[in-house]
């Protein structure tokens, strides 16, 4: 069973020696960086056993990162129930598929076929509430009593939206079908009648045996039977599955690996789990030759993986087609709802309330009117309740007062339907698509090193990026590059951390000669000249031997696979070390630089070139990394048949298995070195070794074999075997690996802090490392007061928190006058304390403390704790949270936060898969939030308010007219105009402005991160603005309606002409209103705003040129009268004046930051801006 992510395990669980941390705990000291600095530490008296650090089963104190996620495999080995199992008869597809119908291997990612397209597509489209609303209104309108609009006009909007969506879906599906076809018709070799024959991919069945050659893609999920490697190893690349580019190893079982399927027919029965989505887990067993062999995730190769470095591999199909794990993981993007939209929905409720009010008013008035004219209705010329045309007189279209009122109500709902801005949802989606387009194509968020663009995975929370108040960041791989570089070594108590020279010795680093060719490691490592000299001089001194063992351990004790790659120079080859852990890679490259070059690894042996001399070691056994032991070991058989075990792991667990009595001084010296390494932010590992006597080896081997073939609890047994072996080690030394800060991280954090965003770092690293990274990333400054909490009981935690609260209050009170760094408090808290605090009543206190702190650093936290910390803030405040991380351990946090950002870095794609946005570098967070987030928020907020206004204005104009028509819902505006109003007349400009308008330039937003505050303060969308907008709407509607009514009172105006006047007036008003708020006029904004006014005029002309419509030619008569133009101009000016006055007044007297910044940008030269910016910084 391979531990899937050793790198991350190191990260999350390596911890300092208890003695070291105790040192820190028990004193209050000044950090020696600045005289003014102070570090307060809360004392904890009880002795801490770091070994049982995370193992207390409190909810957020997860045992290990691996277990906490659905992505990871489960350690439990359960016997598979026959009912829940899938039975696969190896090489017997007929029998396999006899009793159960397993899916064939053809895949269909396409959703529809020609026949199912229409119904299924419609069904899916109507999942949107907006469409249902449209549909219900359209259906209501079809009832003869309620037919407000003609049939065409009522269905048109819905039909057009449905049609566009269907075309888009159809096209998309056609593309999928095409790729499916290519995929299904690929050829692969399948064992048929004892020979491998070519077969189309889609015809492969479960139970068949397939053969895959190097660089081929696996067509379905197969259990490995044998490979070209005699030990049954196959190397695979899973880039298509999880994005990780490194090679992983998969093993064929001992029992099958020697069989060649063509000759030696394998028949057996595989019992395995039902298909599931977990790509990191697989359980099953295989009955072969009467023996039961268990199968785990290391025995299965999944569809989509590529075979590398292995000539061929043979396996039996267990899952095919849509039941493969790759296909089961084929799901959509995460769905979140933005904060703005949630707020907006409250206002939508208000609008619905307005709508109902309008409808109630209309129906009540209609009722009163009918009641008052009850006696006259029969023959009233414009009502005519009775129909006299037939023999007997009967009511015509009159259903009694109650029903009439009810029908009026429904009809008014139909007429006023756009009060609920249903089109807004569609516009918002379009705008978000446009915004995402620009975010993706922003060349300032393109990462050249990993060749990745920014990715928008969630489409509906763009605007949330403009309101973030908390950023929770992972450290490794997020703040740092996660490109490990070997820095220092401490070998048997001697610290080799002297001056480094570039690639000492030969030009271009260390290399070896193989068959006349030069082989070089792919990555160059800076070396310590002293150490290099020592490692080269091979004499029998103790220190030389230690150095030899140390580097041998680095080269051997890992799971790295060397891959020899060609270069452009035929005489030169590069050795590329592929492995799952960047730490291990760095160590192997380091060993190579010092002359211990790993050049070959199979499961049985390794070949190491030691100072030009090739040596072959047998790998007799390997105990892989697990997060309980926090170490791994390898048992090497030397050429002279001595056996040694090498162990490498985190200092906490290593010092417990090192025999200190052997050389106490060395141990003490190494501990000092470790402490100094970690305090400058390096990641440390301790290496130990022990020679095994023959009897020891034999005992180990027997128990190892028993354990590794055990069916039940294999992992536990293996762990026990490992623990028995890994003891009384002699300390070889320790290594220090640097994980460099990513480019621009300090500047980015500085910007975020200025933008009043609190940055919390949650890391699995130890405290010293975390603090030193904190300093180098400018998260911590020397002026800050640090509060450190690390305790291991609830009582002490409580006391610490109380003390810390008192201190922080005092500090904030003392320095209240001058708000600068001196008063800010940094909280440093570790995972153990969090175990006691989270999910208890202490949480409240922690929250209070944390919200007072400018910076919070959480170290040694488990993945679920990360989510717990995010939840701490999210559940207690209204503030928006953003989590950013790159590894599987950040997934829970990313999903918990309002906005999750994944860094597509070294640690695979799990974080990216769970995230809403993904990018290459931490520093892109600054343009993402400060620039795009700001823009998105401003645009979306404005767009929502504008859409409310736009629709309400139209509805109110309709409403006022209803009051003059006997409350009968006649619309002077033609039904086609009311339908086209939100589709053509006014739709485009708001979308274009929502995508393109920029209130401030990128440069300005980046120079003044404080401008981000407008989003945090919800300046662009709040309840007050909503009411102001509605008041403005009311005024504008009154102007738009009553000016024509009073101007045309007692005239011979007909309703079509007046309707045209209203149509034009409202559309002009709405567009002028928008034009008044547009900040940046590009040709596109001009085109859309003036274009839609022109389009409206054209549409009105066209509608009035249709002879069968009652308004035939009205617009021409209307436009030829002076009164019309005077009315129109009057409406436009009178309606905009209050808005203009208020806007100008606010602009002058209460200018918002954005306003001032705009002015500054335009009227002050750039010198001045930057100068004032500098003053700002010095303050």
């Amino acid at each position, binding site marked *: 069973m391979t531990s899937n992510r050793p790198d991350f395990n190191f990260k999350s669980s390596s911890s300092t020696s208890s003695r070291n941390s105790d040192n820190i705990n028990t004193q209050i000291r000044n950090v020696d960086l600045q005289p003014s600095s102070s570090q307060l530490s809360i004392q904890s008296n009880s002795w801490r056993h770091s070994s049982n650090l995370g193992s207390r089963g409190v909810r957020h104190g997860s045992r290990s990162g691996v277990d906490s996620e659905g992505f990871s495999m489960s350690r439990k080995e359960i016997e598979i129930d026959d009912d829940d199992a899938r039975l696969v008869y190896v090489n017997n597809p007929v029998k396999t598929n006899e009793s159960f119908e397993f899916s064939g291997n053809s*895949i269909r990612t396409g959703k529809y076929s020609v026949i199912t397209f229409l119904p299924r597509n419609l069904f899916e*489209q109507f999942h949107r509430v907006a469409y249902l609303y449209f549909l219900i209104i359209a259906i209501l309108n079809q009832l003869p009593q309620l037919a407000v609009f003609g049939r065409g006009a009522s269905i048109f909007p819905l039909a057009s939206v449905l049609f566009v969506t269907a075309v888009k879906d159809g096209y*998309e599906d056609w593309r*999928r079908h095409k*790729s499916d076809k290519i995929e299904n018709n690929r050829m692969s070799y399948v064992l048929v009648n004892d020979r491998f024959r070519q077969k189309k991919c889609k015809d492969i069945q479960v139970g068949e045996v397939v053969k895959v050659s190097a660089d081929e*893609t696996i067509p379905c999920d197969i259990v490995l039977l044998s490979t070209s490697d005699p030990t049954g190893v196959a190397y695979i690349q899973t*880039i*298509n599955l999880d994005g990780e580019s490194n090679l992983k190893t998969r093993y064929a079982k001992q029992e099958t690996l020697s069989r060649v399927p063509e000759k030696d027919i394998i028949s057996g029965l595989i019992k395995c789990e039902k298909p599931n989505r977990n790509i990191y887990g697989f359980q099953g067993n295989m009955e072969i030759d009467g023996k039961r062999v268990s199968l785990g995730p290391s025995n299965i190769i999944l*569809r*989509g993986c590529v075979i590398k470095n292995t000539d061929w591999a043979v396996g039996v199909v267990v899952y095919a087609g849509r039941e493969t794990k*790759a*296909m089961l*993981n*084929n*799901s959509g*993007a995460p769905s979140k709802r933005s904060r703005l939209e949630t707020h907006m929905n409250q206002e939508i409720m208000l609008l619905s309330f307005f709508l109902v009010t309008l409808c109630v008013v209309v129906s009540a008035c209609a009722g009163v009117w009918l009641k008052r004219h009850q006696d006259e209705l029969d023959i009233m*010329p*414009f009502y005519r309740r009775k*129909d*006299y045309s037939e023999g007997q007189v009967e009511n015509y279209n009159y259903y009694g007062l109650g029903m009439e009122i009810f029908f009026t109500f429904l009809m008014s709902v139909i007429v006023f339907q756009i009060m609920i801005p249903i089109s807004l949802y569609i516009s918002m989606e379009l705008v978000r698509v446009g915004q995402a387009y620009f975010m993706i194509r*922003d*060349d300032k968020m393109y990462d050249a090193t990993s*060749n990745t663009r920014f*990715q*928008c995975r969630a489409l*509906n929370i763009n605007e949330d990026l403009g309101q973030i108040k908390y950023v929770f960041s992972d450290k490794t791989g997020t703040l740092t590059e996660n490109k490990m570089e070997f820095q220092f070594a401490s070998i048997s108590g001697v610290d080799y951390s002297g001056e480094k020279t570039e690639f000492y010795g030969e030009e271009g680093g260390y290399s070896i000669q193989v068959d006349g060719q030069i082989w070089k490691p792919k990555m160059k490592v800076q070396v310590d000249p002293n150490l290099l000299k020592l490692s080269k001089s091979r004499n029998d001194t103790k220190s030389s031997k230690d150095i030899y063992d140390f580097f041998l351990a680095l080269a051997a004790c890992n799971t790295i696979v060397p891959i020899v790659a060609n270069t452009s120079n035929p005489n030169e080859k590069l050795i590329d070390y592929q492995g799952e852990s960047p730490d291990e890679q760095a160590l192997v490259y380091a060993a190579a630089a010092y002359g211990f070059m790993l050049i070959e690894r199979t499961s049985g042996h390794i070949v190491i070139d030691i100072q030009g001399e090739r040596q072959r070691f047998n790998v007799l056994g390997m105990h892989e990394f697990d997060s309980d032991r926090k170490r791994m070991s390898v048992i090497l058989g030397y050429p002279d048949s001595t056996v040694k075990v090498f162990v490498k792991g985190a200092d906490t667990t290593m010092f417990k298995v090192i025999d200190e009595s052997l050389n106490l001084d060395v141990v003490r010296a190494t501990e000092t070195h470790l402490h100094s390494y970690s305090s400058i932010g390096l990641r440390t590992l301790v290496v130990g070794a022990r020679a095994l006597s023959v009897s020891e080896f034999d005992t180990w081997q027997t128990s190892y074999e028993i354990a590794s073939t055990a069916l039940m609890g294999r992992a536990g047994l293996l762990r026990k075997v490992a623990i028995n072996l890994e003891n009384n080690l002699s300390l070889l030394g320790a290594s220090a690996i640097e994980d460099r800060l990513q480019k621009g991280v300090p500047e980015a954090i500085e910007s975020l802090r200025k933008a009043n965003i609190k940055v919390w770092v949650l890391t699995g690293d130890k405290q010293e490392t975390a603090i030193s990274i904190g300093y180098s990333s400018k998260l911590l400054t020397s002026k800050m007061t640090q509060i450190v909490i690390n305790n291991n009981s609830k009582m002490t935690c409580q006391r610490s928190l109380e003390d810390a609260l008192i201190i922080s209050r005092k500090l904030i009170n003392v320095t209240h006058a001058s708000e600068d760094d001196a008063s800010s408090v940094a909280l440093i808290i570790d995972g153990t304390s969090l175990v006691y605090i989270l999910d208890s009543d202490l949480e409240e206190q922690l929250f209070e403390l944390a919200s007072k702190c400018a910076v919070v650093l959480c170290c040694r936290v488990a993945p679920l704790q990360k989510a717990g910390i995010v939840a701490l803030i999210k559940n207690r405040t209204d503030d928006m949270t953003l989590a950013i991380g790159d590894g599987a351990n950040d997934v829970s946090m990313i999903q918990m936060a309002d906005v999750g950002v994944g860094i597509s870095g070294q640690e695979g794609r799990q974080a990216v898969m769970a995230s809403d946005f993904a990018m290459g570098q931490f520093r892109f967070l600054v343009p993402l939030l400060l620039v795009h987030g700001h823009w998105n928020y401003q645009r979306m907020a404005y767009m929502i308010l504008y859409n409310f206004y736009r629709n309400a204005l139209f509805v109110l104009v309709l409403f006022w007219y209803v009051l003059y028509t006997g409350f009968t819902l*006649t619309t002077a505006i033609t039904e086609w105009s009311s339908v086209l109003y939100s589709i053509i007349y006014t739709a485009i400009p708001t979308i274009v402005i929502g995508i393109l308008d*920029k209130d401030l330039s990128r440069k300005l937003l980046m120079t003044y991160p404080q401008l981000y*505050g407008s989003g945090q303060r919800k300046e662009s969308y709040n309840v007050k603005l909503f009411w102001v907008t509605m008041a403005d709407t009311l005024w504008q509607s009154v102007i738009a309606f009553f000016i024509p009514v*009073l101007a*045309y*009172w*007692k*005239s*011979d*105006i007909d309703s079509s002409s007046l*309707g045209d006047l209203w149509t034009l007036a409202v559309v002009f008003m709405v567009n002028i209103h928008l034009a008044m708020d547009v900040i*940046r*006029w590009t040709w596109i*904004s001009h085109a859309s705003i003036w274009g839609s006014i022109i389009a409206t005029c054209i549409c009105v002309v066209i509608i009035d040129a249709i002879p*069968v*419509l*009652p308004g035939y030619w009205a617009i021409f008569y209307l436009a030829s*009268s002076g*009164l019309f133009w*005077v009315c129109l101009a*009057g409406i436009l*000016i*009178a309606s905009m*004046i209050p808005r*203009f006055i208020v806007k100008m007044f606010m602009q*002058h*007297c209460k200018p918002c930051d954005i306003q*001032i910044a*705009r*002015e500054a940008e*335009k*009227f*002050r030269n750039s010198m001045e801006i930057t100068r004032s910016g500098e003053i*700002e910084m010095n303050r």
Partner: protein
Amino acid sequence: MKTYYYSLLQPILFLPQITNADMNPVTNGALKSKKTSKKPEYSRFTQQELPAWKPILTPGWVITSFLAIAFLFIPIGLVSLFASERVVEIVYRYDQDCVPEMYRGNVSAYIRNSLTNKTCIGNITVPKKMDPPIFVYYQLDNFYQNHRRYVKSRSDKQLRSAAYESSTKECEPEARFNKSGDPVPIVPCGLIAWSLFNDTYNLIKKDKVLNINKKGIAWKSDTKVKFGSNVYPKNFQSNDLIGGGKLNESIPLSKQEDLIVWMRTAALPTFRKLYGKINTSLEAHDTITVVLENNYNTYSFGGQKKLVLSTTSWIGGKNDFLGIAYLTVGGICLFMALNFILLYVFKPRPLGDPSYLSWNRKAVN
């Protein structure tokens, strides 16, 4: 659990992603192998750096725009008021006076009885000289020609072409006439046509009949296109209940201008419709005798009937509203311009002064 997520336009954005990432994990291996730089191509559009005009309304501009509106609106207002002032309008309400005393208690019996004498005579005085053309209107009050039932009750197809004679679906209850058990379509059908206004006016000035020209009172577009020249009235007002005027069955609809005017339904419950034009001028203090047939029943719903003689101007009839509105708006703008001048003088704010930024203000406080 598969999360259901459906987004309208996702594919536009994600077309590259559909092939590369999640959609089909197998084929994308081939696509990925040719590794090209994914660096977004630079264009001013994609980087949102299109050249743009960024207007900012400075105090100068604000004052200028207020003044501009004021100086534009006040003259227009004055001109409109002047034009409205020049319009001469005579309104003569006759619906009550023209009911004989004996019928005042039971008006509907009088008006619905076809045998009663409906002729009524009245006098009006011309206040000012009226230049031709003088428009003769009838004005109805409280008549909802925009009532939903009423507006919809017409068949534009039928009016336009004889071929659609029987398309009377929308016209109920005035769609068909039961001609001896066989329902035949009414042309023109519907309530609008049925309720055709049928009061007639004769104007006599000094014993000379004033000629009221009833040609050309309807829109040309209506007579030419909307009302067919081959459509003749049929079965009109043949049902028991007669709503209003009758039509000469030998004249095609396109020539029935009274009907055409009537069928262009009024927008508001108080409306005028053109009855005819007088092409001679009327002098001030002329007394005109109106001889009218008071046929039309507005009594059943309390409607008023008025005869209106009016000249026109470029602004239409007599209506002071727009002039006043323009003057008000212009005045407000002038007032605001002054206010803003005072504001900018007494409480100036340098544009783009960083000290007004919220974070700087906080620091000062």
